[in-house]
Structures are given as structure tokens and as C-alpha cells.
């Protein structure tokens, strides 16, 4: 792949990109005030800070309001099926492990219909960043409960209040073996940008659950709800190396709700690093196709 053969010109122009260079072809069609705007601009800033260029990044999403993300972001993008972004992203990452892969989606997409893939992508430690814009509601279908909706929440599908307990994405990610688990709030852009940046720098499966309020359909968990409650873990003496304490802090849900890096396990080999097939020869996607004489011979010999 000649991506590595960077010319002089490119090096010169590679220096100062601005967040707007990661602005997509069209403007978001999110509702005014939607938390997803904040996430979009934080990822744009994070990419700039990390010195990435649009062609080096692949965003992958499923379906839902937040899954329209790749269309609003200037990079390679895939807007895939509902719930399947992590599976698609894993395939793309294995095929070209030099890509910076960022999966963007919502709580219904990721923890509901895509829950199975969340578990398995985490335990496989695929080297990608997973940003969940968690608004605790199904928005694009005009307001029904999601897997993170609180008990007793009234929606169109639960007019008398939800009787289902929500999942906790943070403890779930830790239990599933994620090696980077954080929570952000789209109302705290500076902090969120830092978290996203850290997540993208992490080698392995980096998960960020982001409170991204739905101003149209979720009036329980809106900005006024979160603003006084969110507390940065960084402001406390939190050790992200201790998964038990991380889980305890993740379970706190009341006057205090923690954001920041709950848990990180560094130097865990990623799926790609554990696969000898990727050791040499660059991305699989750009390797020559077909079998050489020796490979063909060895296959035939075993058949004789």
C-alpha cells in the first residue's frame, strides 16, 4: 500500500488541519439541541489533535439518529445495518489494520439489537474506538424505551412506565473484557474531547458511553438532569487500573454520576496483534491475491 510513501508535499500540508476539515458533505439533520452535535465536534477536534487525516479514518455506524454520523464527518465511512456496526468494523479493521476505526452509534443500536456484538467485540479486544451516543431512548422511531432507559420511564411503548431494569454499559463493557471503558457527557465538550482522544490512542477496544441527551423524546434525562450530577473521575483519586472500583463508581446513579475514564488495561494484545497472519506484509486488503506454487503444492500433497 502506498499510503506509507508520503511525499514531501503531503508532509507539508499534513500539519495544520482544523476541525472543520472533518466536516462532512451535509449538515446534520439532528434536532436543534441534540447531544450528538457535541459528540461530532469533539471527534473532529480529537482527530485534529491526533494529527489524523480524513483518509486514515474509517467511521462505521449502524442505524438510528446518531448512526447518521458518518455522513456528517469527513472521512471514509460506512453507514451499515441496525446493530451491526461493530461486526462490520471488525471485518474492516482486520482487512486493513492500519485504518483508524471509529464506530459511532446509539444505545438501542449498540446495546439492544447489537448487544451480542458489543459483548464479543469487547472480549476480542479489536483495535477500534466505540462511541455510543447514549440518550436512553429510541429517537428515530419517535420515542420508545431503549436498553438504557430508566425504570418507570414513560414513553410511547411504555405509557404506564417501564418495568424493565436498564443495563449499565460501563460495567457490561468491563465484564465483557473491554480494555478501555469511559463515560462522557456531550455537555462537557472539553472533557469529552480528551476522553475520545485517549480512547483513540488506546491500543485495543476502547468504549466510550456518552450522555448525549435527546431533547425531543427524553425529558427525564436531559441537560438539566445531567449538568448538576456529572462529576469527573479525574477530579477524584480514581485508579482506572482497578476494575472493581471502576464498577462501583459506574453503579453510582443519583446526585452524582461519574464521567471520565473508569477502567483501562494497557498493553493487552489486540486481536490483530495476536493474529500471526497480520505480522508481515501490510494490510491484508492490499496484499497480492491467489496462491503461490508452494502453497498450491502443499495443499495438493495433503490430498494425495
Amino acid at each position, binding site marked *: 500500500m502506498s499510503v506509507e510513501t508520503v511525499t514531501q508535499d503531503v508532509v507539508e500540508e499534513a500539519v495544520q488541519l482544523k476541525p472543520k476539515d472533518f466536516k462532512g458533505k451535509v449538515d446534520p439533520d439532528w434536532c436543534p439541541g441534540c447531544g450528538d452535535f457535541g459528540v461530532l465536534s469533539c471527534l473532529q477536534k480529537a482527530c485534529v489533535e491526533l494529527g489524523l487525516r480524513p*483518509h486514515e479514518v474509517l467511521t462505521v455506524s449502524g442505524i438510528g439518529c446518531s448512526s447518521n454520523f458518518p455522513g456528517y464527518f469527513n472521512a*471514509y465511512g460506512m453507514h451499515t445495518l441496525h446493530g451491526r456496526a461493530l461486526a*462490520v468494523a471488525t471485518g474492516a479493521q482486520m482487512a486493513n489494520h492500519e485504518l483508524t476505526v471509529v464506530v459511532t452509534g446509539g444505545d438501542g443500536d449498540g446495546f439492544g439489537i447489537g448487544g451480542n456484538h458489543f459483548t464479543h467485540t469487547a472480549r476480542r479486544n479489536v483495535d477500534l474506538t466505540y462511541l455510543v451516543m447514549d440518550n436512553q431512548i429510541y429517537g428515530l422511531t419517535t420515542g420508545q424505551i431503549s436498553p438504557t432507559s430508566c425504570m418507570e420511564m414513560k414513553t410511547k411503548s411504555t405509557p404506564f412506565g417501564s418495568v424493565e431494569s436498564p443495563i449499565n454499559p460501563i460495567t457490561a463493557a468491563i465484564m465483557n473484557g473491554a480494555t478501555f471503558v469511559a463515560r462522557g457527557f456531550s455537555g462537557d465538550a472539553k472533557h469529552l474531547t480528551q476522553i475520545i482522544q485517549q480512547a483513540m490512542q488506546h491500543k485495543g477496544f476502547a468504549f466510550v458511553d456518552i450522555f448525549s441527551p435527546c431533547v425531543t423524546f427524553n425529558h427525564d434525562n436531559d441537560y438539566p438532569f445531567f449538568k448538576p450530577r456529572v462529576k469527573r473521575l479525574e477530579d477524584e483519586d480514581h485508579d482506572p487500573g482497578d476494575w472493581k472500583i471502576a464498577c462501583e463508581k459506574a453503579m453510582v446513579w443519583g446526585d452524582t454520576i461519574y464521567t471520565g475514564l473508569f477502567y483501562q488495561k494497557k498493553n493487552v494484545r489486540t486481536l490483530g496483534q495476536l493474529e500471526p497472519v497480520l505480522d508481515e*506484509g501490510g494490510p491484508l486488503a492490499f496484499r497480492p491475491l491467489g496462491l503461490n506454487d508452494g502453497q498450491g503444492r502443499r*495443499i495438493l500433497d495433503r490430498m494425495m
Partner: protein
Amino acid sequence: MNSATFDFAIAIGGAAGQGIATPGNILARIFIRRGLHFNAYNAYQSIIRGGHIFLTIRISNRKIHSHGDKLDLLVCLNQDTMDRHLRIMGQQTRVIFNSDTIKPGEAAEGAQCCPLPIVELTDNNRNKLVQNTVALGAIMHLIGLDFQTLEDILTLQFQRKGQAVIDENVVVARAGFDYADANFAPFPVPAPIGPRPLAIWTGNEALAMGGAAAGVKFYCAYPMSPSTGVLHWMAQNARDLGIMVRQVEDEIAVANMAIGAAHAGCRAMCATSGGGFALMTEAIGSAGMMEIPVVFINVQRAGPSTGVPTKTEQGDLWQALGASQGDFERFIVAPKDALDAFNTVPELFNLVDKCQCPGIVISDLLISEGTFSVDPDDIDMQPQIERGDLITEPRTDVSDLPSGSQSGNGYGEGLVGAPSNGYLRYEITESGISPRALPGLEGYVHVVATDEHDEDGVLISDEYTNPHKRRKMVEKRARKFKGIATQIAPPQLEGPEDAEVTLIGWGSTYGVIKEAVEQLKQEGVTVNHLPIKWIVPLHVEAVTDIVSRSRRTIIVENNYSGQFYRYLRSETGLAVDGHIRKYDGEPFMPHHIVDGVLEQLAGKTDRSVPIQEIMV
């Protein structure tokens, strides 16, 4: 058949766990090294211990295309096998069994019982698998082979287990050989030697190898009988061949992961059976919408639902035809045998790469889990690879940054918004095919989408719906398949043009119909054969031409409702004169088709459903 033809079948029956696979493999090695053609069908159940397994091995010095009609030698590893199958053993047959544990039944005249006193012959060896090796020794004598042949293969087979295991096996095999030599008359015609050694494979291995030869770099699967053999081959060979092989949480993830890998630039493939294929279907449509080339293999089992996991059927044709919502372009192909499966995969990859769409291979248990000899010279490990309109080099004379960006280099100002590289992933072209650039390349930044989108990948499904654009994109994708059938070999009529009967089949029935045609010739009935392999595109003109000139057409299908017949009728308007259908989980044997044709010629019926005589 003339006297020079050697055509012989051995069956080994027992329960799961009695170790039938090992003697099967040993016999296979012996026969293919002698250059004998080999066709084995294993009837088994979804059980790890117990049940009834019945392995039929047919060998010949001529090419054979099915597991045949008759058995010459039956090896009973348990009483159940004796009780079930002794009645089908006729003139000039032999039945081997362990006389310590199995009571012979009432054998038909001419069927010779060959009891082996295993305890005595093995010096009271407690290994329960020892009777298999004794039986192998006896088989060698009965089919006129010398003991050394067996000893060589036993040595090879147990190499990894050490000399002691080899010695133990050779000693008991020798005892079986000597005992048979002293007590039983061998078959009058010994197993001959063919012109040169052959190779052996299963259909699943052929499919996997076809993928490897086609340049598959990403394979993923969820285990599901009868498709799992593809995963096993891929996993075993992954590191030598540089293929990323993944076992994934479910078939939904399998299909989507393959799509992700394919979009990033790998040739990607996955295999499953009907139930798993059902889970893949949404993703198949997404590959159609995003225009990503991927190959999906459905190895059919008997359905519906969980069905009969270890039995064969051609029951998923309409499932493949209806796989995913909406209209979209995809290939569907049903290879006729293992070698054809091997050759089909690279051909299909070239087609899906060219047309940037999914391709579906329909196999079934009969092909995929059958074991067949193959002439190694017929296997082309380096087939032609054509990737179509694929961009794999970056370009630095344009910018991926938004037009008007101060950070950009000022090139490519043609578009409103970002990026300004001017690249349209879904560019409207005359052929409908738009150049496909791989993610990671500078100068081609774009987004692909499962939502309907415009040429530049921007969604037209939500905010900017536009009927004219929608129509334009539907027609663009459809144009990729305009005249596509002309690029694929049409089906050929085999046999005399003016035959009394034309047998039409599709996919895996190729071999058994071919043999039925030969048998019918001996019965004085001239029959020709129209095997259909390409379901989509269907060669409507060629098929219509052949069928409308046929004197009497009979469709042979391994399903209940005549799935292919209904498809043929929907695409061509053609009707046929009769049907032969089998849906009991077991594959056709040649005489099933022969009997069906004869009863239909006699005017007894136009819908024959053969009875499975061998109870497995």
C-alpha cells in the same frame, strides 16, 4: 457394463463413537493411491455417541458420479447395522462382523457371512476400536489386495501417535487378514490399479480451496452442519496461506464482518446452512445496496427450521432467491459437484468483483460432506483473478478536505461541501458500475450507505428524499446485470438431441442423473440431461430453446414442492411433463431416477417419489 469395469461398494455401519471415520479414511487413501475413483456418502445423525452411522464407499476404475445403487461388502460394527442392512445384501456379497458381539441374521442366498472372532484374533485386546482394524485386514483379503498396502497406510495414519500404536494396529490388522485368508473366499475380481494416483477431497474442502485460490483473505463463520468443513479447512490453512479466519458469535455478525472486510478490500467469504443463512439475509441485501462484493455459501440441510441437520435436501432455493428485502443484483449459483464447486468460487468472485454485488453459492450436504476422488491435474490452483473497476492506489493531486478549506491544497473545487476530491463512489455510468476505491487511500474519501444514497454517497432516504434520484440509483444498480448471462457459460444439453426423455436437474443432482441416464440407456430408453448450475442469472433463452425441443421433460429435485420447477416456470413460462422428487433426507440413488422415468413412461404417474430402501 463391460467386463473390464470394476465397480464395487463397501458399507461400514455402526454407532457414532465406534470410529467409522478412521477405517473410512484408510480405505480412501488405499484406493486413491491405486488410482481408483472414489465416491463416499456418510449417512449420520446429529449425535456424538450412538445413533446409526452408515458410510458407503464406492470405487471404480471408471469415473463415478454417485455413491451408486448396490453394496458388495457390508461391515457391521454393531448388531443394529446387521439387523438393518443384512436384507439388502444379495448375490455375490459378503458381510463382515464381530462374531463375539453380533448375531448374524438370515442372510439372502449368495450373501456370504464372514464372522470374525475378534477376542481370539486380538489376544483379548480391550480397545473397542480394535474390531475396525481387524475388519480392515479382512477387507484387504476379500478385495484381493496384499497386506503390505494396508500396513503402509496404517503406518501413515498412526504416524503421529507413535510406533507402539502403529505396531498394535498392524498386528491386529494382520490377524484379520490371515483369518479371512484361511476362512473366506475373496471376491472373484480383485481391486484393479488405475493409471495414476488420484487425490481426495470433500465438497466443503473444495469450496474452501476455491476461495483460497480465488484470493480470499478473510473468511469467517459460525459452525453449522453441514457447512462447518469449510471453516475447518480455512482454519487449518489460514497461517500458511495468509488468510484471516474468524469464528464469530452468530451468522449475523459473520455476514456483516465479511462485508466489512470486503469493503476494506479483501476478497471475503463465509459459509453456513439454511438457518444461519436466514440470519445473514439482511446483510446480503446491504452488500447489494452498498455495492460490496462478498460470497455467501449456503450448504443446504433438510429443512425447515432446524430441520434434519445431518441430512441433505435442495430445499433452500427460494430462500436464496428471496434472501433480503427489496430488489437488488446478486448472483446465485449451484455447483454440480466438488470439482465444479472449486472452479465456481473463483469465477463467482470475478463476477461479484466486476458487478460489485453479493454472490450466493448453493451447495448441499451431499456435495459438501461427500468425499470424492479428483485428478490432481484437474485442479487449477492459480485461476484467473479479475477484480473489476477497483482503485487501489492513492492520488495526491486532489484533496480529501472540504472545498474552500484553508487547510486544503486548493484542488478539486467542483463540489459543494466536503470532501473536494471529486470522487463519486456511486457515479452514474452506462454500465452501472462505478469505480470502487478502498478505504485508506488518499484522494477518494467517501461514505457508503445501506440507506438509499446519491452518487456521492449522501443519503437520499431521510431528509433529502427525491424520487428522481431514487429511480436513477435503482436503475444504475440494475444496469450492472444487463446482459450478464452472456458472460457466463449457458447450460449444455448432455446426450442425444432427439432423446425420448429430457431429465432436468440443478446443482448436486448432476452426478446421479448422469448415472441414471447411462442405466436407462441399457434399459433401451434414450435420455438426455439438462443440468442447470446458474440460478441467477438464468439462461432463459438457452433453457427455453432446449426444453421446447424436448420430447418429454422430467424435473428431478431433492425437495418436496418442486422449488426449481416453480422457479423455471416463473422465469420462462415453461411447463414440464413430470417430476421425480425425494425429500426423505437421503440423496437420490441412480435407480430411483431410473424407476421414476420408467413408471412415467409407462403412464403410471407424472410425479414419482422414490422410496429410500436403506434405512439410515
